[in-house]
């Protein structure tokens, strides 16, 4: 279809919006998990039965391409991959992510085979577990926000939402890996190193989190400036 300006009289169909498509509020979210469809009818609770009846009547939104029903898909990993992506190069970001997970697995297997028998159970080899635990260790518990009172701006300690914590943890990891590495090291190596350090509660990202906590602790007198 030729893209160009055509006068409204010649174009019979409407232009469909590509971004920011706003659905009617009656549209429901698509259910992607296979387990929810394999449950027999009797096991469902009242709310789930009502939800199923509603789905028979209401239209359903189109599933976005990032949503998948495969066992290998993880929403946190997808979010991290998207944050690593530059100028839409999802192929590169995804390959970097898989190389990072492979590097983590390799390093942990090396340690596993070198370790004596009694320590072998303590070594975690699953890269997904390591990734999740490292992210959890990097999440700050309390944040600082600028509040202006009487003409002066103060840094006030403020509780953060879950989304904000996850975002900050991922952002710190990525910026750390991009900036503080030797010119020749590749991203997967540096990221795997940082993730393993964060898994053990060491490393520069954990230090950054501690710095934030210390600043919040120092400014705890200003906590009353909050109004929520």
């Amino acid at each position: 279809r030729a893209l160009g300006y055509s006068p409204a009289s010649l174009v019979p169909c409407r232009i469909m919006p590509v971004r920011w498509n706003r659905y009617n509020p009656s549209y429901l979210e698509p259910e992607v998990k296979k387990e929810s469809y394999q449950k027999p009818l009797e096991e469902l609770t009242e709310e789930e039965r009502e939800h199923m009846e509603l789905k028979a009547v209401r239209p359903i939104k189109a599933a976005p391409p990032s949503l998948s029903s495969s066992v290998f898909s993880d929403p946190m990993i997808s979010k991290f991959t998207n944050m690593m992506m530059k100028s839409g190069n999802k192929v590169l970001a995804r390959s970097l992510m898989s190389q990072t997970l492979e590097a983590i697995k390799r390093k942990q297997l090396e340690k596993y085979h070198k370790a004596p028998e009694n320590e072998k159970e303590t070594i975690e080899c699953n890269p997904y577990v390591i990734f999740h635990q490292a992210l959890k260790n990097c999440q700050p518990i309390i944040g600082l926000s600028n509040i202006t009172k009487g003409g002066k701006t103060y840094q006030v300690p403020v509780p953060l939402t879950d989304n904000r914590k996850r975002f900050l943890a991922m952002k710190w990891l990525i910026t750390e890996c991009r900036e503080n590495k030797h010119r020749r090291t590749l991203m997967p190596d540096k990221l795997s190193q940082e993730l393993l350090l964060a898994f053990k509660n060491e490393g520069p990202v954990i230090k950054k989190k501690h710095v934030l906590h210390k600043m919040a602790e120092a400014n705890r007198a200003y906590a009353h400036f909050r109004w929520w």
Partner: protein
Amino acid sequence: MAAPAYPAWVTRWVSGQWRNKKRPPALRPPRALALADKVANRREQATEATCITEMSVMMACWKQNDFNDAPCAEEIRMFYDCVAKAEKERKNQNEDTMSSRGNLPSSKVNKLLKRFPQITRYV
């Protein structure tokens, strides 16, 4: 002989108050003597910050344990619970009409008054 009981206006006339233009004030109200359909905009008092005690307990625990999260897990859990509760309270409060101090905010009062305006004339 007892003092004769004259009506009040006679005494006043005789005393000459009205000649000196000391008359009762003629009321000329600049606005109608009726309640208006809106309230003045009052700046709503800021609510206090929530979860300060939990936060200070958690920070004391941090100071003792050199900002490690593992020994302070209980305090952190309590802080998160308090934050979740406060957030839920805030969400519910916006649907109800009464604020925590018992006064309706001026915007809501104006909306109500607009629905039931003062009747100025009968038709």
